[in-house]
């Protein structure tokens, strides 16, 4: 029996009409005598069992329906979803032999040929598809992309323009940022940066924060000689990747992605997104077949940690270290687990000290218990990080975590002397990490904070600026630079950073409050008033906001110099 064709259903507009006719023809088609066996992988012993199971199921379906073009194509989608493009291409070939009018499989074959690097063959398929599906944005967009790489720049531009024009002919008009950026790229190839910039701006209106649009806009602005604005856009677009309008097969391809690495990545993403129940469900599937591998155990520990079950996380990491002794990534994960708890305790202690300062009575036994627990956690964190650094001494991030362990231990130091020693040791580890190269995203900020703790403002500023360089719109980074400039008594340089912080932190109470305070520090009362108005507007009805506003207004009234009386003669010295 033929499977229903869900993909055909999802194609829209005029394309849908065309395809419906084609599908009807396919059902009436006689099986081809030459189609042969579906392509298979000879040796699957090293492959992920989940993927092997999926392929077996789809092969069984083909065996039951050997003349079904859709069944072959379904196997093609499974191969393609797992980036096995050459086999996917052969499946689509067979589908086309069984149903020569199955244009959707021609489209997929073109995509696979493109992915395999067979550009001319891919363009042949995509051109033919685009002739049929004139009004399908993704088809025109894919063709535009392939033509561009082939150096057919004018034809690429035309295809991207068709992709955009096709949007208007859909039953429901959806405008795609990706298509505008694709066209902008084609225009940059043709040295037309002005229209390219306008398209990128349009894309950013459709999809604010779309990195690819930022990056392409940056390139266009460089071409237009607007270097400063261009650089900001390039940084905002870092690590972009090209996208396409959604296609009818997107969801299926994603669902078929079964390889081990991909499944692990999906779980990581679920953990990051806080979807822990689904993460656990998927993890259980992997644990069944590969539950004794450290990569899986470490991921399970991360899931447990995010679920708030530190004890389970520790158990899993212990198992992982049994499976792969001295594995640096496991040791660092153990270190992080301990540091996270130690950080929470340090926070608790700080809160308690603040309460004590406000007159609350604290139980010294509780304080001591927390102190001891914090110290113990720092010790085990340090042991883990040191073991990782010993096992892999040339990896900078291992030394970084040794440094963070020492830095955290300083929070529990008995006295200033001990704290100083911990910070100094932390610095030595950070310097080693710096020399080797450290990927931890907050490394420069951590260094800036460490130098601040050590009372070394010059170095604090240096690393705060480096951090800001990487995240130019980050409010914490901007605040730290401002603090560092104040510490260095370079108040004359502060104002541009405050203005950047005001822009980056628009609507955010802490950032705007910091701006007000910074303006006051440099006695820029006009700036302070402007920022204060923004602060007030960001927190209407908030009593703490109102209290702060009143206090600042009073301060300004008191401190603002009176307008000087007309000078009797000459400038003031």
């Amino acid at each position: 029996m033929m499977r229903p064709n869900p993909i055909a259903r999802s194609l829209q507009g005029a394309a849908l009409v065309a395809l419906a006719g084609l599908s009807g023809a396919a059902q009436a088609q006689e099986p081809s005598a030459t189609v042969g066996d579906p392509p298979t992988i000879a040796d699957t012993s090293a492959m992920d069992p989940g993927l092997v199971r999926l392929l077996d199921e789809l092969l069984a379906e083909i065996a039951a329906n050997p003349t079904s073009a859709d069944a072959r194509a379904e196997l093609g989608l499974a191969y393609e979803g797992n980036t096995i493009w050459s086999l996917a291409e052969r499946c689509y070939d067979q589908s086309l032999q069984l149903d020569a009018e199955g244009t959707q499989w021609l489209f997929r074959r073109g995509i696979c040929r493109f992915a395999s690097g067979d550009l001319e063959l891919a363009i042949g398929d995509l051109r033919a598809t685009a002739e049929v599906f004139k009004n399908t944005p993704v088809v025109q967009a894919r063709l535009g992309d392939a033509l561009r790489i082939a150096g057919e720049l004018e034809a690429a531009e035309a295809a991207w323009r068709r992709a955009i024009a096709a949007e208007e002919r859909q039953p429901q008009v959806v405008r795609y940022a990706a298509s505008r950026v694709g066209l902008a790229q084609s225009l940059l190839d043709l040295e037309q940066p002005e229209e390219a910039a306008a398209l990128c701006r349009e894309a950013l209106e459709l999809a604010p924060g779309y990195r690819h649009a930022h990056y392409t806009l940056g390139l266009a602005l460089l071409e237009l000689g607007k270097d400063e604005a261009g650089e900001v856009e390039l940084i905002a677009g870092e690590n972009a990747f090209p996208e396409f309008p959604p296609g009818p097969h997107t969801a299926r391809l994603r669902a078929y992605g079964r390889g081990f690495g991909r499944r692990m990545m999906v779980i990581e993403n679920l953990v990051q997104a806080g979807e822990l129940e689904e993460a656990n469900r998927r993890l259980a599937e992997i644990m069944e077949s590969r539950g004794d591998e450290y990569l899986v155990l470490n991921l399970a520990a991360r899931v447990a940690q995010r679920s708030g079950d530190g004890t389970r996380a520790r158990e899993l990491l212990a198992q992982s270290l049994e499976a792969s002794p001295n594995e640096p990534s496991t040791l660092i994960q153990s270190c992080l687990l301990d540091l996270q708890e130690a950080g929470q305790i340090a926070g608790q202690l700080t809160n308690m000290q603040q309460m004590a300062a406000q007159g609350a009575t604290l139980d010294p036994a509780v304080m001591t218990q927390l102190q001891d627990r914090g110290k113990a956690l720092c010790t085990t964190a340090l042991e883990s990080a040191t073991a990782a650094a010993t096992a892999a001494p040339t990896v900078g991030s291992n030394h970084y975590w040794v440094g963070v362990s020492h830095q955290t231990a300083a929070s529990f130091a008995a006295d200033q002397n001990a704290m100083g020693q911990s910070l100094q040791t932390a610095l030595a580890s950070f310097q080693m990490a710096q020399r080797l190269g450290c990927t931890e995203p907050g490394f420069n900020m951590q260094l800036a904070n460490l130098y601040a703790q050590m009372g070394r403002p010059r170095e604090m500023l240096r690393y705060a600026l480096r951090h800001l360089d990487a995240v130019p719109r980050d409010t914490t980074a901007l605040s730290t630079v401002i603090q560092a400039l104040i510490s260095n008594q370079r108040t004359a340089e502060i104002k541009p950073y405050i203005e950047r912080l005001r822009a980056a932190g628009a609507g955010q109470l802490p950032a705007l409050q910091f701006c007000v305070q910074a303006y006051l520090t440099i006695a820029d009362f006009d700036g302070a008033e402007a920022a204060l108005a923004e602060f007030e507007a960001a927190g209407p009805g908030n009593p703490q906001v109102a209290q702060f506003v009143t206090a600042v207004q009073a301060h300004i009234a008191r401190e603002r110099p009176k307008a000087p009386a007309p000078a009797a003669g000459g400038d003031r010295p």
Partner: protein
Amino acid sequence: MITSLSLLALITPAAAQDATPAPVWFREVGAAAGVDFVHMADRTDRHRFPEIMGGGVAMLDHDGDGDLDLYLVQGGILGEAPEGVERPGNRLFRNDTEPGGPLRFTDVTEEAGVGSTAYGMGAACGDFDRDGDTDLFVTNVGPNVMYVNNGDGTFTDKTAKLKVGDPRWATSAAMFDANGDGKLDLYVVNNLGWSDSIEIECFNYYGEPDYCSPNNYNAPSADVFYTFGRLGFTDATLRTGIDAAFGNGLGLAVGDSDLDGDLDVYVANDATTNLLWVNDGRAIFEDRGIRAGCGLNGNGTPEAGMGVQFVDLDEDGDLDLYMTHLRRETNTFYRNRNGKFSDMSNTTGTAGVSIKFTGFGMGFQDFDLDGTLDLYVANGAVQAWKESERFDPEDPYAEPNHLFRGTRKGKRVTFKLTQPAGATPDPIIGVSRGAAFGDLEGDGDVDIVVVDLDARVKVLENIAPREGAAASWVGFQATSGKKGAIVHGATVSIARDEEGKRQYRQANPAYSYLSSNDPRAHFGLGGAAVARDVQVRWPDGSVELFGDRPAGEYHVLQQGAGQKQ
């Protein structure tokens, strides 16, 4: 509705790549010339990352006799050697070619004292101490080695004395004068903070164990920069700001990207953002890669940067960049305009071909002397091709090398793939890595040496057909100082036509992948008897005019001997 017949007609494209039929340009003469070096990568089923990356080569005149000798960097044994097993080492082959005779090399490794048995990667050459001979720096998985030339063709290992034996995994390196003091400083690119203990299991597209992406290790390594002064080399990495950015470094190019009179450094990183270290003239560097538009490709995505060259492809007097990349990425051309770069790969004619292959060593040279640059790319995968797709049934990583012939259309130079692949009678199919470019016979055309993993080195003698008697050439060696030390990073230019258009070539050995090349600037003249209006832009930004020079010779251009512009 379109009928099935018409649809099938639409979907039948040309089956073959659009390739320019061209006669053979190169003949592989390694064995006949006595270069019997076989690279050994020590590939295992553990897929340790460095196994798949190595294989550099240097062309240098080690004995000062005016021709280019070959230094081949061996992999050998990664880690401890089993008991009783001797480690294979690097080898030096002296060029003994007679004028007009066939290429002839003799192994002089032992007498020269340069047979390091570390697991080697690449090499950099230069007269860093300005004593008139070429010194040799070797990068390794483990401590690097500096061989200082004794002036008689032998070397002394002075790594410890000069304190340049950094133990991390280094890949490419270059010697150049960063601070304008006339002495060559040393930049060393590091890849990963690799050790056996961080090795992990990775899987290819088919779900089978294979080599990892470098990002799987999360251990990119900062590079090292040494300045050379009265006290020898000093590790200036922190002082000069080179620690501020880093990645999984592989390729390296040096040139004055912003024409401000000092040499900048470009590092091609593998799957991490590339770095453009812009020099302030005092060897204080700032990474401007992303801001200048050449840190990421045109999509804003980091690519797997391998080989790289600063080269003026659009003939406007500044240095563009070209870089080789992984399969499913284009080889990327960054056009330079006023120190800002745009990814214009799609205009070169090489992008579409390159997405199927993984490029490593590369070089733009005018191989057929027609006055337009051509491009040679040494390819080899880092993830296995499936059985049915393999180019070599015996080696799932093997790929064919490519030669692209440059043609000028109006203002633009574009490139077309030639067939047979690589322009040799039998296509060179291997896991190619390092490729060095230079005139080995001294006959005025550029030859190539390619290192393939686990294979005998290929020496490709240039036999490109000339357009009748029309082909001619000229070469220039840029020198300075009393002993005529070779200057790295000078840009030589000649007039191309009566309208004042010029052609520019770098005199610089540092480009390609893990390799050191002929330090001379080479021009095909397409039949002209004279190279007209020769000019040199020295690394300090000064320009000197050297007038017309006859074709068919290598000319020495001594700094200070020309007419100042």
